[in-house]
């Protein structure tokens, strides 16, 4: 057993560091630090995606024949860790990490040829049409319906919590094409051009003051049958496959560590009257750091298992659950560390383009929005309650 990296891996680490040093501009870095949403705005995020693509690193998890870099799990770990340390933009994962693997796994040759290069280059910007107002955790009860009409489907219904729908030019969606004996039957996986007539998008503002999610309405939206991925009625299988990617991406500790470092820096600063001198704050920082250490070790154990071809299984639910809980602990700590500055509300966005002097120092601007928006971490991608159901079922057999 060995925690350290070998010579090749260290060389790769240098390569990643050099790449970041050459491509990450101060503007990108500042914009990322001052973005309290999950993902960077597309102008910032896609600029980084283009740089990655130019380097051949646009889609770390993809097979080589579709443009993946063929990294080992250790290399992916190094890449993600170095990116988190440097504070690179948070590229919207809907393309590369979500719809990409589904198209690769189940799409037609035409779909692969058309969509995959456009995801890599950042030409297409994707959003995910899964949840509906009546279908949250019970996702497979979804009602948005696609009715066959010649070579088209006609779609009616609505999707909600659609991250960056207001930026996206494409959506992958789960829609009901028939009614089977089980509610999971009769769901199909469809790719939709967001410019198609009949689609309207309503912004939803989250409690931190950010516009990241939306509700999307479909009124007689005509989509070619050729846009269906895989077989009709098998969408639930593909959608679940994708959810495993969403949860099991599995390298979150480095970002958590950077988040905690930012809060600890504030706690050690005169800006907070040295909050760290309170034993309670100092101990809580250690508690969160230790939780991150534990998560990091679990991630490394999973990576080691992956390197030898073992399947990590339900541990991806543990990673998702702990990541989201620790993320919330970090942001809760932040809210406490900044003291009275937690009272100030800054409604303007983006925070990196304010045209006035904010009420709090810039270093604190994202703390409250991140705490407030961060309540969503234990809700999206399968709530903590759903993750516990999965752990009980898959790990404990009950």
């Amino acid at each position, binding site marked *: 057993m060995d925690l350290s990296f070998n010579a090749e891996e260290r060389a790769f680490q240098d390569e990643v560091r050099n790449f970041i040093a050459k491509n990450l501009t101060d503007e990108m870095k500042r914009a990322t630090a001052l973005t309290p949403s999950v993902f960077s705005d597309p102008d910032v995020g896609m600029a980084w995606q283009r740089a990655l693509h130019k380097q051949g690193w646009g889609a770390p998890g993809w097979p080589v024949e579709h443009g993946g870099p063929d990294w080992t799990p250790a290399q992916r770990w190094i890449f993600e860790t170095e990116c988190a340390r440097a504070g690179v933009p948070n590229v919207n994962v809907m393309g590369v990490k979500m719809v990409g693997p589904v198209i690769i796994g189940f799409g037609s040759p035409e779909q692969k040829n058309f969509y995959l290069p456009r995801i890599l280059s950042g030409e297409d910007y994707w959003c995910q049409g899964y949840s509906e107002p009546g279908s949250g955790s019970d996702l497979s009860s979804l009602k948005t319906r696609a009715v066959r009409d010649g070579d088209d489907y006609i779609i009616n219904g609505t999707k909600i919590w659609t991250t960056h729908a207001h930026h996206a030019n494409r959506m992958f969606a789960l829609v009901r094409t028939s009614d089977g004996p089980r509610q999971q039957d009769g769901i199909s996986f469809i790719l939709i051009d967001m410019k198609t007539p009949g689609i309207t998008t309503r912004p939803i503002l989250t409690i931190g003051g950010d516009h990241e999610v939306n509700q999307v309405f479909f009124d007689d939206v005509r989509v070619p049958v050729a846009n269906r991925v895989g077989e009709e009625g098998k969408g639930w299988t593909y959608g679940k496959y994708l959810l495993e990617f969403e949860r099991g991406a599995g390298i979150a500790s480095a970002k958590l560590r950077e988040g905690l470092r930012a809060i600890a820096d504030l706690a050690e600063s005169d800006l907070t009257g040295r909050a760290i001198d309170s034993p309670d704050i100092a*101990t809580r920082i*250690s508690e969160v750091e*230790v*939780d991150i250490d*534990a998560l990091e*070790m679990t991630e490394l154990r999973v990576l080691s298992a992956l390197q030898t071809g073992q399947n990590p299984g339900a541990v991806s639910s543990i990673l998702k659950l702990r990541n989201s809980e620790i993320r919330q602990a970090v942001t809760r700590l932040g809210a406490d560390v900044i003291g009275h500055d937690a009272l100030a509300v800054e409604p303007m966005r983006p925070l990196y383009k304010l045209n006035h002097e904010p009420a709090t120092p810039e270093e604190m601007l994202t703390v409250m929005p991140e705490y407030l928006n961060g309540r969503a971490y234990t809700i999206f991608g399968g709530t903590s309650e759903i993750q*516990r159901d999965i752990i*009980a079922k898959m790990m*404990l057999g009950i």
Partner: protein
Amino acid sequence: MDLNLSDEQKLLRESAERFVAESYDAAHRRKMANDPLGFSPAVWKQFAELGWLALPLPEEFGGLGGGAVDVGILMEAFGRGLVSEPYVATVVLGAALIDRCGTTEQKQASLPKVADGSLKLALAHSERAARFDLAKVATSANKTAQGWRLAGSKIAVLDGHAADEIIVSALMHDHHGPSGRIGLFAVPATAPGLAISDYARLGGGRACNIELSDVNLPQDALLGDGSDSLPAIEWAVDRAMAALGAEAVGIMQTLLDTTLEYTKIRKQFGRTLSANQVIRHRLADMAMQVDESRSMALRAALKADSPPVERARAASGAKAKIGRCARFVGEQSIQLHGGMGVTEELEVGAYFKRLVAFDTLFGGSAHHYGRHAELSRRAASA
């Protein structure tokens, strides 16, 4: 980076798990709980034959040259059966300190005997007034014409009653008074002036308090050259905490398995306990905390030979985190067993008590989160 077990480590785990499963049943544990020695000399002999006593000792002194990860594999298996043999006292603390501080002659005299099972050791360091502060030692060692004279009191000496030799820490005095240096002295169990009062330890095994009333020792009772042994004591205790953390993981895993089985069988309101979501989620949390503990014990072991601050942060982080998880898993195991969980008729209580003992030993979670925070500040200002 590779956290997979090697073939040798897999073999070690299999043989340790098999040995524990075959040798440690409820009847054996009950017998040991009422035994004045608290463990079985026959089992200790088997440990020697299996090479487990030699496992982390250097090869030049009869050892196998294993590391903290190997010890952790063994300790996790020990935890599954609540093994009460004095492994930590003899091998992880005693022999490690002789190896780290002793002269070549001292190592040659002791370590091969530890490896073959003929020498049992203990570390007498904690004192009542020191609480968990390893640097605070009032027991004194005064230079005499023949060697040293030790006086003072020690508490919570693990397995001291069974040791052939007790390693006692004492503040060394010269003719100016206290030197500020802590020395480690090998005191034979039969030394005049040494009084041992032993007691049954929470969760199995035994421990003792020790009075040293002018115990006279020869010159070479002092391990090494007389330089300050505090860094070595901290090093050894950090390693012991990693080992005990692995043991706690084994204990927690057994409690989780047992509790899970029970909730699948026990019926109330016409259905099994595990049919209730509130129970399933509790068990999911327990499983998650066992897994986090496993990560932290492994992390502490992998960093056992890192530079002092990094090693100590990993050890304290693991001790604090595993201690907290252990309390949760232990208390919830009792809760889910209902009233029977509070009785001596089930073994749940014995496993729980060993976890409580683990959490307390060398300082509880609050102490170690505090130490971790203190070390962070030291690392930041360095």
